[in-house]
């Protein structure tokens, strides 16, 4: 089981209020991603759940049990740290076995669980090495192994992929997703990378300055962002925001249109291509449209567009997002 409930949780460091009163419900087996720009409080929130920091007020419930004052180890949560936090003086085997040793499990039981975790994570051949002799991806797997063997109520991940190179990041992302599918344990995952959030999450929690901006499934956030912040944060490349007369025409303060929704050829907007990035599969354009502004456009495939060309753009009415003066979606 792994239900986690935060009720009116706050955190202040000295005079600084990092987390204003915050409520959140995490259901058993869910993959929840906390996403937001750096300094938004997402890591702090994770550490509050882990018990590595005391909450200033409010209540944390894990599996229906009040865990507000419980020590980290009593919460039955396992954490994978950004730096992996492997014990450098212990072999991989001992690293993975450490929580079991702390729980005073019989040696045979420990060995069985470690072997099992190593098999799942392809670490069997590395069990007697030290962390220093492993690659980044392998260290990451050891850290996950150390978390798995505890059979925790929930896994906590604190930006676990940020120290890996781009291609490894994609592989590890998939491995963690597969792990979630096979273990079906609650996972809470912190990242600043919205792509990770979109691809992995059942539920995304978008945080900004300690506040929850929106909670929802990836596609909910994509299709129905509650406000400008979420709209701008989710989706890549970023949503175009148009203000002024063009927005007023649609009866809003800010008009949003995603780059992939703008169609090239025909339409009301005429602009000059300032920059064309050819990826083969897609083409990204920066287009200066008079009276509208600089728009990013994503065109699928290769259309032979280039710098300096004048093109017409069409924004389908059903793909427009409208925001009021307070930044909330209309």
């Amino acid at each position, binding site marked *: 089981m792994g239900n986690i409930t935060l009720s009116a949780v706050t955190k202040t460091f000295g005079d600084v209020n990092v987390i204003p009163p915050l409520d959140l419900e995490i259901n058993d087996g869910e993959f929840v991603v906390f996403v937001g720009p750096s300094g938004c409080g997402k890591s702090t929130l994770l550490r509050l759940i882990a*018990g*590595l*920091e*005391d909450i200033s007020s409010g209540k944390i419930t894990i599996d229906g049990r009040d865990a507000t004052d419980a*020590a980290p180890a009593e919460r039955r949560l396992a954490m994978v740290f950004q730096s992996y936090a492997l014990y450098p003086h212990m072999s991989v085997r001992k690293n993975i076995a450490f929580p079991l040793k702390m729980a005073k499990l019989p040696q045979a039981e420990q060995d069985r669980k470690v072997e099992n975790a190593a098999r799942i994570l392809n670490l069997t051949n590395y069990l007697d090495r030290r962390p220093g002799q492993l690659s980044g991806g392998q260290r990451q797997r050891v850290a996950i192994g150390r978390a798995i063997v505890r059979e925790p109520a929930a896994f906590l991940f604190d930006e676990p992929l940020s120290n890996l190179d781009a291609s490894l990041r994609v592989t590890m992302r998939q491995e963690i997703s597969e792990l979630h599918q096979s273990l079906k344990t609650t996972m809470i995952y912190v990242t600043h990378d919205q792509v990770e959030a979109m691809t992995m999450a059942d539920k995304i929690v978008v945080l900004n300055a300690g506040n929850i901006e929106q909670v929802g499934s990836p596609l909910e956030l994509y299709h129905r962002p509650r406000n400008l912040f979420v709209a701008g944060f989710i989706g890549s490349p970023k949503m175009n925001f148009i203000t002024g007369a063009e927005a007023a025409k649609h009866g809003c303060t800010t008009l949003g249109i995603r780059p992939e929704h703008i169609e090239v050829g025909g339409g009301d907007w005429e602009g000059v291509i300032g920059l064309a990035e050819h990826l083969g599969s897609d083409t990204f354009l920066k287009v200066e449209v008079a009276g509208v502004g600089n728009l990013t456009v994503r065109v699928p495939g290769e259309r032979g567009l280039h710098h300096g060309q004048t093109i017409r753009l069409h924004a389908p009415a059903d793909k427009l997002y409208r925001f009021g003066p307070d930044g909330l979606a209309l």
Partner: protein
Amino acid sequence: MATEHSRTAARLMVSPAVILLFLWMIVPLGMTIYFSFLRYNLLMPGMESWTGFDNYYYFLVQPAFGAALLNTLLLVGGVLLITVVGGILLALLLDQPFKGQGIVRVMVIAPFFVMPTVSALVWKNMFMNPVNGMFAHLAKTLGLQPFDFLSQAPLASIILIVAWSWLPFATLILLTALQSLDREQMEAAEMDGASWMNRFIYLTLPHLTRSITVVVLIQTIFLLSVFAEILVTTNGGPGTASTNLPYLVYQQSLLNYDVGGGSAGGIVAVILANIVAFFLMRMIGKNLES
């Protein structure tokens, strides 16, 4: 960064050290301050009386104080000059690749590990002695009159001895700093056409500034307290020619039993050291933040 529970434990763990250091700082220093306002001579027990600032007055106006202050400054300044300049040159030399680097490095560092009484006595007897010392033998070989270092130039001789002990320190620290100099930066400067001299002035020296400051400040702290070297070589003489402040305080309090006067001198030394310490602490404090 932590929970309330660990904070309490942390406080408990720090307190023995804090209490001990606090007592160590406050009790003797408080006593020194107290004594410095007393007429207090160990030869006349029971005759202690309050004198206000008299001790300070007499300590500061005695001719020996002026001499001791000057000697202290000359000693600190002279040793700093030799060790910093020598240390930079040596560090630059040892930073070059050559055969037996490890062995030479070890030889250069060695004097730092020699206890002050040994180095002072060895220099005094085996090298500077006007009859049997090596310098005297060398002078005789060259047909010169042997020079009596410790009576003709007592302070300079002590500066030489102390500098020998501290040169390794400066060299070692500056060498460590040199080795952290970015090689690519040097190569970039070379590509930009900077000569060896220019690279030294515009890259190496600024890179070393911090370490040089550290060397200067730390050595100053220790050099302000040079004592053993003077005790075993010249006893501060001839006259007051090689008496520094610590030695003067020692003389006044433990040789002349003038506790009040000695204490006043001690406080003067503390004030002097604190001026240096102030700058050193700021320097280290800055480093703590990064």
